[in-house]
């Protein structure tokens, strides 16, 4: 039975998600900054409750005409589950390879290393930051390569989604002085939103 869940996020809750994401992405950026010796420009995270078929709209930081590469990683814990997507504008790889100091030609396999290294840091640290604040623990599945050098629409629309709604948090990272642009998207499953809201209400109350 696929009953439509009547999930809602109030303005107060949305604000709280935004602030929690803000703190978590700051922690992730700090790790990246320390690893690469750079300054990461932090955006204001965008929190939206949206229809899964509008997912494309959540990726506002990347233009649809760009060639992109991406990985995704599932997470679950305390009745909350979802997926993290990290999507890179392919034009970024030139500069990332300079920063991560891998030797050798920039080819598809080196790009994959760079993608995985960045995903490990940004997804891992962001999820940990959010989990700590909500007082939950997430276990992470193994990351999966969604595609390399593909059109953004092909990357996010290839699947038949089982959920209809998702709580999406978009964080668009840029690195000062470099042409690096990536979008981290945290998507919480529809049936997790009630549990999430409870956790957030607890924070809002005390």
């Amino acid at each position, binding site marked *: 039975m696929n009953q439509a869940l009547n999930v809602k996020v109030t303005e107060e809750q949305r604000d709280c998600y935004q602030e929690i994401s803000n703190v978590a992405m700051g922690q992730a950026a700090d790790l990246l900054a320390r690893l690469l010796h750079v300054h990461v420009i932090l955006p204001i995270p965008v929190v939206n409750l949206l229809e899964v078929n509008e997912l494309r709209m959540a990726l506002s930081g990347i233009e649809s005409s760009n060639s992109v590469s991406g990985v995704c990683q599932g997470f679950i814990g305390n009745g909350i589950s979802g997926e993290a997507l990290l999507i890179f504008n392919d034009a970024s790889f030139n500069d990332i390879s300079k920063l991560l100091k891998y030797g050798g030609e920039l080819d598809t396999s080196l790009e994959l290393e760079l993608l*995985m290294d960045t*995903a490990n840091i940004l997804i891992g640290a962001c999820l940990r930051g959010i989990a700590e604040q909500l007082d939950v623990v997430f276990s*992470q599945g193994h990351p999966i390569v969604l595609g390399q050098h593909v059109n953004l629409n092909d990357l996010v629309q290839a699947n038949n989604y089982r959920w209809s709604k998702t709580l999406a948090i978009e964080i668009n990272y840029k690195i000062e002085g470099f042409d690096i642009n990536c979008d981290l998207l945290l998507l919480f499953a529809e049936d997790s939103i009630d549990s999430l809201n409870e956790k957030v209400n607890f924070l809002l109350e005390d």
Partner: protein
Amino acid sequence: MSNTSADDFKEMHALMSMLQNLDVGLVILDRNYHIQLWNSFMESHSGKYPYEVKGKSIFTEFPEINEEWFRHKAESVFLLNNRAFTTWEQRPYLFKFKNYRPITGKAEFMFQNSTLIPLGSADGNVERIGIIIYDVTDIAVNRVELKSVNDELKRLSRTDKLTQLYNRGYWEECLDKEFKRCKRTGSTSSMLMFDIDHFKKVNDAYGHPTGDEVIKTTANILRETMRETDIAGRYGGEEYVVILINANAEQAFNFAERLRERIAKTVVHHLDFSVNYTVSLGICEISDKIVNHSQWIEMSDQGLYRSKEAGRNTSTIYT
């Protein structure tokens, strides 16, 4: 009190034997990459007992591990107290383990995913890391097979069966792309269209099997004569087309003449027949007058028509 600690001990014991029997590899490394823990999965697949590897450097015990690469990943786990994941798509394996299923195993070695976990002390410093090794051979092999099947299907859908040149549909797609590339970048390319003179007579005189042999031989000569970057297709029954990338009309004409002479010298031996034949060719360089790829084809066809008018076994540049 003593009862509880006995229960705890039992539970711990049960947990340890579960870990030993887990069908994933578990390894713990200290800050110097020396092996501290080695479960039975690792023992079974490597053939090395825990006492043999304990306290030894993972890099000396397992020279197949790319040290620079692995340190790169592991150092970020030590420094940032953050997990890292590697997938078989990056490197097929961390530890080179033979595929142990003799009948249904399709790969020579075990494909592996791995997770590196920081193991901290109370003060938050990471002193050791845990490695979990997953056997993903089946997934990897299926994915690789699926890709090769898809690649083969793609190739078949683009290829003309008799000549193994591109078929008309795919070749036209290529021409359209090249047309747009030239317009965008201002480069010059040419196209060549040719057909076999009096092919109907070949068929009538020697039969269709010999006619097919002539068509195949022509394709082979074309393949041997053209550059690797050129794109050749079978356009119709005895009609061929070639995109000569970055060639102007003069260069394309030289190519056409070389091809024409080679074919004219060739004798096809099939069954008891020996067939000598010629081709007529038309060349057209891209220009501002041409507005789309279909027009490019038409103009090359005009060149070919003029060669026929001029008595065949000739190349003509359409201007």
